[in-house]
């Protein structure tokens, strides 16, 4: 492991990589701060730039953008109560009241220290867990991988909101369907190309991500303007950030919260499909319960614990979601799904072999997480008053620019104008389905895992003489598929039990 860390340090600490960590954190903070644009859009916008870089540098850049975007999201949550991303919604519960009390600087500092601690502690967990899991997963067969991908996709549904399970599953299937467009990898047969040569290579992953996130988010903002005037008024109100100093007592209050939320966030992040949003809400709820009645009352009114818990947990979860990506090649979240696509674009296959074949990429990603967190704390925090000025840029200038960067990002990769038209079409479809409250992230997960899933299933059948018996003959495959089934059916069974219990209680009261 020491050798690995040294490799990682050697790669991540080269001047060019440090420069890209700095740039990534800064750009990520900028983009994450814009209401409506989250880490997924931020990373998607970076892919064309990352594609022209060395794999390790490109991944380091995207990882830095990821943390930067989460940090930026927290800033807009605290300053103007407009979370850039779902994972920082819980941050606004106590961060915004603190800002209104004239303690915006302190709230930002607490958020930054908590994010830093959560990220660093989780990176230590990742350092231990990833090589161990990678070593274990070296014994996995194609059948197990197929089962793992089924688990990854069904887990998305398990963590979807109430009533959204079916929609999440359906969107996953749509993503899988889109992944089958193009020439079949094994038999060279064109599928769903509609006779168009431009579709022979399939739908570009970057195109789909840009269209469904950056483009459609900008179009949604055009459809329903949030009002620049209000945003500017809020900015003026919070232009005086106040002191950024955190007292010893406050540090003492934050420390146990950070410890608990880091562990919770990391575990939630490792679970496929869960991610930073669930981690932040869970940490907030847990701390409110632990705080007791007196301190619990302060939650929602500017509680330090209430701000520190979700900030720590969302960063720890962001780090945790790299575990399944780096060790199994299965993304734990929409954001890591985009990173997986980028890795595949470099010709790197994430999974247990990554640890052996590409140690520089593997370790430099882990080490860059520490560097990224340090950059956010040392550089971005003091710069926040200046970076926050971006919130005052009118959306009439910002939105066309976001559209332009999305379109040109895709065009610069293929130099094919057909891609721009296809992107507009997907953008339109994404707007329609967002408007109808259908989730987009499961579709991206399905799209990215589709090709690998088909290949592993085909290989498993080939090894097993065209027999599907591998599903129940290999205990590991069966166990993973059973977990997937329980992920899928547990929420349904649980809601049935709850309903039956309520019915029994009512009958008891009536009797």
């Amino acid at each position, binding site marked *: 492991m020491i050798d690995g860390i040294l490799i990682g340090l050697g790669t991540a600490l080269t001047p060019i990589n440090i420069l890209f960590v700095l740039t990534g954190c800064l750009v990520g903070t900028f983009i994450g701060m814009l209401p409506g644009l989250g880490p997924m859009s931020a990373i998607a916008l970076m892919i064309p*730039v990352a594609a*022209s870089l060395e794999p390790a540098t490109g991944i380091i850049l995207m990882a830095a953008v990821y943390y930067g975007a989460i940090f930026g999201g927290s800033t807009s949550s605290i300053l103007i109560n407009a979370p850039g991303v779902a994972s920082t919604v819980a941050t606004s519960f106590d961060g915004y009241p603190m800002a209104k009390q004239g303690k915006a600087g302190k709230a930002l500092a607490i958020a930054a220290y908590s994010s830093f601690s959560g990220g660093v502690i989780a990176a230590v967990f990742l350092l231990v867990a990833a090589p161990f899991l990678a070593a274990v997963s070296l014994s996995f067969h194609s059948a197990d991988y197929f089962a793992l991908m089924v688990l990854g996709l069904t887990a998305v549904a398990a963590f979807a909101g*109430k*009533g*959204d*399970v*079916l*929609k999440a*599953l*359906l969107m996953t*299937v*749509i993503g*899988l*369907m889109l992944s*089958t467009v193009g020439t079949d990898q*094994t*038999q060279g*047969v*064109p*599928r*769903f190309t*509609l006779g168009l040569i431009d579709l022979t290579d399939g739908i570009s992953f970057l195109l789909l991500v840009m269209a469904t996130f950056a483009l459609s988010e900008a*179009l949604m903002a*055009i*459809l*329903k*303007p949030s009002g620049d005037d209000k945003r500017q008024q809020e900015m003026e109100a919070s232009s005086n950030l106040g002191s950024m100093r955190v007292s010893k007592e406050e540090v003492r209050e934050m420390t146990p919260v950070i410890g608990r939320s880091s562990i919770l966030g990391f575990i939630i992040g490792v679970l496929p499909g869960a991610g930073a949003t669930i981690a932040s809400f869970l940490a907030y709820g847990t701390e409110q319960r632990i705080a007791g009645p007196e301190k619990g009352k302060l939650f929602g009114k500017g509680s330090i614990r209430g701000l520190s818990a979700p900030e720590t947990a969302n960063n720890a979860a962001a780090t945790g979601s790299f575990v399944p990506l780096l060790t199994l090649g299965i993304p734990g979240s929409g954001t890591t799904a985009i990173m997986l696509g980028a890795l595949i674009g470099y010709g790197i296959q994430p999974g247990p072999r990554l640890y052996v074949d590409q140690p520089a990429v593997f370790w430099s990603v882990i080490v860059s997480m520490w560097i990224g967190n340090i950059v956010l704390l040392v550089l971005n925090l003091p710069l926040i008053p200046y970076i926050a000025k971006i919130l005052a840029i*009118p*959306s*009439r*200038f910002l939105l*066309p*620019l976001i*559209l*332009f960067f999305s*379109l*040109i990002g895709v*065009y*610069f990769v293929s130099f094919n*104008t057909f891609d*721009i*038209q296809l*992107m*507009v079409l997907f*953008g*339109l479809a994404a707007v*329609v*389905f967002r*408007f*109808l*409250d*259908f989730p987009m992230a499961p579709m991206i997960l399905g799209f990215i895992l*589709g090709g690998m899933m*088909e290949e592993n*299933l*085909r290989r498993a*059948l*080939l090894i097993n003489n*065209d*027999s599907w018996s591998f599903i129940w003959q290999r205990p590991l495959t069966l166990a993973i598929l059973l977990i997937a089934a329980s992920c899928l059916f547990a929420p349904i069974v649980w809601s049935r039990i709850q309903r039956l219990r309520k019915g029994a209680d009512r009958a008891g009261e009536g009797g």
Partner: protein
Amino acid sequence: MLFSKDRIGGVLLLAFCITYGVLSQNITLLPIQAKAAFTARTMPEVLMVLGIGLSLLVILFPGSHERPRLAGFNWTTAALFMVLMSAYGLTIRPLGFLLSTSVFLIAGFAMLGERSVTKLLLVSVPLVVAFWVLMTQGLDVFIEPLPWFLKG
């Protein structure tokens, strides 16, 4: 509610899945694969069944009965942006990067309410030129800057 958001989405995706299923039957198979357990059609056929099944479940058991509200949205502006993006795709080659992108940005800013001609020009043109210089000189990505009639 008959026309809830979930149901409308379910119907749209059901239509997509049926079309996908019909098109999956056009995938040509080699004669030797006729009896193979896994062919180029296997995955699409499984997905078609899953897709149609799930769409029907969404239609029959919608999670929410909320109806879509169309009022209060800038539909015209959003539609115009769609047209603008498509036009940008069609003109980027014949008009060159500098002109087509400047026109795209100026039209975009104007459509969202910017009326000052000075601001429109000062924000868009320098940005487009700077971006082109950065891409061609900084990242070695060449893109034709000028329209067809000015090319040498």
